[in-house]
């Protein structure tokens, strides 16, 4: 229960901090609108030249675009700010302040920041998903919807693990200014069904950089493409990656020496 209490506490603190800057909501909403507009424009351009892309119709791909925007909201609101702060603090030796607290260090460094307004992408992504689903020919059952939500949570977990593994690299590499660029670049691959990529890229995008599992698999649940084996593999992979991330974090932490040490 203690981790949950801690999470609730940090959420409350950060929300109180964020609502001081209400104007930022409108800017975040505008920027979210722009990113939806780009997604739609790209989709329209692609489908002005074709009817299906690797078997995906425009409405089905809209679901993927929606999932990608939704998860990017989760990343920008809750994951990336924490990881960037971690990298900065490792470099400046300020991580001491987190490590000396009597709580689990991984938990603590993952909870400290929350950019509430960035989460508007979660909303606009969900709307895009809903529009995509509404335009599908076949209707989806409650089972599919629940599976979708579960896989979406799993996707968020995978993205968190991936970010934390990257950020843990800062115990070895001091200069990590490229991290956000690297993540944003690689994350753009999630806009498209993973099946269109050539084999080597598809595998590295599924297991090395888990964008495929994070974005495509939930979308598969809504477009009736999901086989139960994929869901099981995704779950097993999520568990394995969480354990690895935990181990890697502790391994990296041993290399940390404070600012003056």
């Amino acid at each position, binding site marked *: 229960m203690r981790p949950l209490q801690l999470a609730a506490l940090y959420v409350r603190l950060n929300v109180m901090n964020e609502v001081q800057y209400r*104007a930022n909501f409108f*800017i975040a909403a*505008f*920027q979210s609108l*722009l990113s939806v*507009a*780009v997604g739609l*424009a*790209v989709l329209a*351009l*692609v489908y*002005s*030249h*074709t009817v*299906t*892309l*690797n078997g995906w119709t425009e409405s089905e791909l809209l679901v993927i675009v929606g999932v990608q925007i939704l998860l990017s909201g989760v990343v920008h609101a809750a994951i990336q700010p924490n990881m960037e702060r971690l990298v900065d603090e490792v470099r400046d030796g300020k991580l001491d302040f987190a490590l000396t607290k009597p709580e689990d260090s991984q938990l603590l460094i993952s909870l400290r920041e929350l950019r509430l307004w960035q989460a508007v992408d979660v909303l606009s992504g969900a709307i895009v998903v809903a529009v995509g689903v509404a335009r599908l020919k076949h209707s989806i059952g409650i089972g599919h919807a629940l599976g979708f939500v579960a896989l979406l949570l799993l996707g968020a977990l995978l993205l968190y693990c991936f970010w934390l593994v990257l950020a843990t690299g800062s115990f070895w*590499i001091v*200069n*990590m*200014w*490229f*991290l956000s*660029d*690297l*993540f*944003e*670049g*690689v994350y*753009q*691959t999630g*806009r*498209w069904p993973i099946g*269109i*990529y*050539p084999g080597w*890229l598809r595998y590295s995008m599924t297991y090395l950089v888990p964008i495929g599992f994070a974005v495509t698999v939930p979308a598969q649940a809504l477009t009736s493409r999901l086989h139960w084996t994929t869901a099981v593999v995704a779950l097993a992979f999520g568990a394995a990656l969480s354990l690895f991330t935990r181990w890697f974090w502790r391994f990296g932490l041993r290399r940390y020496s404070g600012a003056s040490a």
Partner: protein
Amino acid sequence: MSATAVRRESSVRSMVDFYATTIRTQIQTQFQYRVALYMYTVGMVTEPVVYLVVWSTIARAHGGTVDGLTPGAFAAYYIVWTLVRMMNIVFTPFGWEWRIREGELSGQLLRPLHPIHYDLASFAGQKIPWLFLYLPIVVALSLIFHPTLDPNALQAVVFVVAIWGAYVIRSLNNFSLGMVTFWTTRVGAIFQVWFLAELLLSGRLLPLQLMPHWTQTLSAWLPFKYTFYFPIEALVGGMSTSSLLVGLGMQLLWTAVGTAVALGMWRLAVRHYSAVGN
């Protein structure tokens, strides 16, 4: 030699000196952080690879071409794209917020040179180590995607000139854009609109001939296409000699316009500046 001629000559020489020194320092600085640079490059190369895969998939599904472009032509377009994009990276307008907030600019204002010279020289210097890191990536991409590329000597020469033209135009435009920061701190949305327009109208997203006609007309009147589409097409597109020269002429025109705007914006903007901390 008259006194003014001597003065002019020495000012040219000190400018050349400044550029040479800044470029040299940047080369050394960049080579220090090879891992960081490579990771950044990996993130950047994903973008064209994604576009390339999407359009090749469509081409193959439609008997091998999209509006006459084969997978090989797409491969050539997007592989040259990576090179042009690398040349295109300039000081980000988002950086001005930091320069102003941290009082970084105060130091630059004391120098006897216009600050744009520093940005132009330092990013030009960074291109050289980047190019070294890029060559293996370009080779790897070519082995994987088999581009059809057969430029003649003139095209190659125009390409080399045009990528520097693209660099200068984009530097000037992003400099002017960065000036907005002097008036308001909420610049993110404005910049995003600009980069969105660039994405769609420059040929960054896809070869412009695949865009609807009205957007092609629109982009002919804007500078964006001379920083992406024109340099790429100069090498891969089989343009005629006259259209190559017209393209270079347009780059020159946009350089002149960009210079005028950048200088004007700077003069207006710097009046709004007050250093932090005093």
